């Protein structure tokens, strides 16, 4: 166990209600508005509504929706019905396959830039920005929650959670880097 190298906090968040929707841009917007969600004006931004549902536009034809787990059933029903009304666009529940990490603190970029070629710094990636990108060898979604100090949410396929967490802790200097594969560092918190 080594002393931490950067002033950063790395947490694994509890499971949230997460949905991924793909399809023609007009259908996505129509269905999401019909389900009562806030729609961001630009892509690569997120919009939050009063209940805490967060819609991330990752491209013309792809969105991700986050919400507290308690809202999962209700949101699922609303989305199922909204997407049943459009011919092509589909919305899938992906809560169980989405691991969420929060990396925050003045040293957050010192850690994240070790694995992310994308410029996550401040003029380039402002508060409210959300986009898909690469972090080491995993595909993730970055969302900036705060600017000072830095706070990022990272969404990644749950199967990669152990790999990403190991890298984050090694990059921060918390772990000494001699981890064997096949060993989860810590089991995911129960829903």
């Amino acid at each position, binding site marked *: 166990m080594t002393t931490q190298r950067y002033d950063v906090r790395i947490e694994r968040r509890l499971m949230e209600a997460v949905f991924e929707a793909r399809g023609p841009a007009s259908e996505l917007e129509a269905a999401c508005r019909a389900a009562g969600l806030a729609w961001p004006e630009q892509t690569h931004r997120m919009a939050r509504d009063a209940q805490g549902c967060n819609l991330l536009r990752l491209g013309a034809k792809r969105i991700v929706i986050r919400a507290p787990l308690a809202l999962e059933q209700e949101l699922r029903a609303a989305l199922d019905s909204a997407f049943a009304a459009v011919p092509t666009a589909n919305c899938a529940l992906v809560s169980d396959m989405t691991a969420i990490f929060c990396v925050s603190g003045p040293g957050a970029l010192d850690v994240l830039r070790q694995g992310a070629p994308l410029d996550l*710094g401040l003029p380039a990636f402002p508060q409210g920005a959300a986009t898909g990108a690469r972090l080491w060898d995993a595909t993730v979604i970055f969302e900036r929650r705060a600017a000072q100090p830095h706070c990022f949410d990272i969404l990644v396929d749950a199967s990669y959670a152990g790999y990403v967490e190991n890298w984050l802790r*090694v990059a921060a200097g918390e772990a000494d880097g001699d981890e064997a594969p*096949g060993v989860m560092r810590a089991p995911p918190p129960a829903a």
Partner: protein
Amino acid sequence: MSARRVAGGSAIDRSREIAFTFDRRPFRGYAGDTLASALLAQDELLIARSFKLHRPRGVFGAGYDDAVMVDRLAPRPAANQLATVTAIEDGAAYRSVSTFPDASRDLGALAQFFAPLLPAGFYYKTFMRPNWRLFEPFVRAAAGLGSVPQEAWRPVCESRFGDCELLIAGAGPAGLAAALTAAQAGAETILVDDGDEPGGRLSIDCADATGWVNGLSQAFTSLPNLKILRRSTVWALHEHNLLAVLERAPRDGAGLDFRNWKIRARQVLVATGAHERGLLFADNDRPGIMLASAARSHLMRHGVLCGERILVCTNNDSAYGAAVTLAAAGADVAIVDTRSAPAQSCLDAAKDSGVDVLPGSRIVAARGRRRVSGADIMLADGRSRRIACDLIAVSGGWNPAYHLASQSRRATSVWNDEISSFVARCETDAPLRVAGAAAGVFAASDCAADGAEAARSALLALGRTVDPAPPPELADAFVAQSVAPSWPQPGKVRGKTFVDLSGDVTTADLALALREGYDSIELVKRYTTAGMGVDQGKTGNVNVIGVVAAMAGKSVDAVGVTTFRPPYAPVEFGAIAGQRRGARLYPWRHTPLTRWHLANGAVMYEAGLRWQRPGYYSKPGENWEAAAQREARAVREAVGVYDGAPLGKLLIKGPDAAALLDLVYVGDFGKLRPGRGKYGVMMSDDGLVLDDGVTFRLNDREWLLHASTGAADRVYAHLEQVLQIHRPHWRVSVIPVTSQWANVAICGPRAREALACLDPDFDISRDALPFMGMAEGRLGDIPVRVFRVSWTGEASFELNTPARHAEELWRRVMTAGAPFGIAPVGSEANHILRVEAGYISIGHEVDGTADVYDLGLGAIVSRNKTDFIGKRAMEIRRRTDPVRPELVGFLPDDPQRKIPEGAPIVPIGGTDQEGFVSACVASVALGRVVALGLLRDGRARRGQTVHAHVRGETIALRVVDPVFHDADRQRVKS
């Protein structure tokens, strides 16, 4: 006659003495000394042996232009450290490289007697008979450089990305002026320099620059948009302005030994200075011969006067500056200038310092072997003279170090007659500029002006307008002006004239290369190894090009330069790797059940795309084979359960979804009813199998496509390309949901009984839930979707549940199955089960050569469709090559003999491979070894005996049907 420490030295701290050993002898130095300067201070000149001939060698340059390497034995053992760059540490031990027992008394010096047998390219001509292999071990041992440290020291290395608007490589006068301009304009700027403090050569050449440099350092502290990386080298300029920068010992409190940056800069300014080059004369490699700028650098930075009687040999003005400085430090200095009429200012300065000048003269040979003792000069009138001296300081001109600009491939090398060297010409719209000495501008003030102007131009491209501050008045009197050409034809001189010290390449080697027809400069380089050594030709390449031009009768420009490639300076592998080592070399993926597997004795294997899956569950006293047998037997006799979560899953919706499936699969999918599944094989358009799997129609609108674990990404990519490139008007959406669903697969003759114990709220009878059917409901309180597919040759129920319920469901299955003797099943047992049942596996039987018919799956190919992806190519292939590799089974004559998977099948006495064994297992159903494989014309050869070959051994196999269990699929459908 000796080198010694004198007053001065801007880099050293005389209050901190340092003790170290070199080649097991003790030495002392000061903090701030390099190994080279500390050894020179104690008159230790012979500190290395040359690579090929083991000639005595000493320090030639003062930084990355030198090639003397040492191994650091302690602390932090490391091989091949550059002596002119390595800072000495207290208690350190260094050893010369590739010498025995040490540099001074090296036995390898015997190589010099074999020099006639070791010209360029000798290994094509000598040491061939009777057998090269007799000589190979000795040549290989001699060809090494340094030795790998025996003790492990793991430096802490970090690799990191960065971004900026302007990156300036080099903090000499040009770089500093550029940094000030850019930072004051508000641009995000990074300034990179390999020294501890900025200033570059100003501390050596330009004593009155200290004030300016200090003033800038002050100004920089109040410019937060300027980041300075010290002790850092820009070692590569990759495409789209991605720069690799190695930061050594960063002092930001992070405790790192190295930080390797990959910085994307919108604009780059190369201000990396220039390298002095040497002169060509016989035995120009002796200890005690160094670049004039190096002699000056060792004096100004480390307070080391490298000789008492110094002969400065030059063809340009810059060496006069060195001569004057050396004379002022107390040496007896004379100048030999090839130019017959040097500038009056040079002559006056020499005279004022008491330095004799011999114009129109040139050095012909060096005297002395282990160190320089004198020089043979040819005077202007043709007479010879021998001059006694203990240091020859040479200056043949200066080569702008524009390597990075050339690496970008956006600049060409152009010969500049005025400075007698090459410079870079950047493309007009390239986001790249060169300034200062790297651009052939040598006077310090001019460099500063050039740097500021380059920054202004770069800032303009970034959308910022700025008026740079006027350049400082910096006086450096003698710059590399009026360079006389310095490449004579090789005359009849005794002794070797070296053009590349690092590779021991002489002018005779260059002549040999040209005589043998290697006339392109790239061929000359590779044949002679000139420019391929540690210094990568920094001091030698232009001399090589000049000599080749003179010998071949071409202009220097016509000969051209060799291609510049990274790294610019030596870089440690560990620094590039950072923390990407051990487990993190590649990603790994877990299923939701990994915790349970590990807690219950699973030995994990890597499967498919980086998934960690149980290979087998080990019980005490069992090896993997016994465990696999036990698990497979449990499935055959009762019930087993395995974790199928990594199976690829794609959710497909849209009015054209059925059309998509009909296009990508060989079978008919359009008419599949909701709640039913169908086994499909997907081909790529070249007619070879891409993947197989069962696709279910979930409801009116949605389909769930299953892909093999290892092919999931490929299949998703394939579908996206079909939809976006080939059928852009089709309305289909595809969402990957592989990790959303855990897959608990119960299989075996008693699987249904076990399932019944789980309290399903839906009908699981054979009629309600037939083979290839699905059902949705709950098992107790756990929501599931059940798919009736099988890969084991037994009745099977794949229970899909959202991953959050996975562990609970699995536990309940284990409990429910306990009375039946349920066993968790790993991939080893799965392999046995599927081979017995004759099911193909992507990566084993499907190796990219067999098509659907070859694999015995012709029955699933649609007879109605006129087209599907792969159909046409498959037909062409079957028509032109009708004898096909076909899937068959093999039974070894020896029923217990296992055959390694992949073993080739070759007829006895023949040489053409006719097939291979793709899978081989100890079958639990048959109690003997069975195998599958591909065999040319296999189906027609059932009953024949063929032979697999394993390391010279031949194993007889009988060809049979490729299914050993449940051939009629009754168990699977039960």
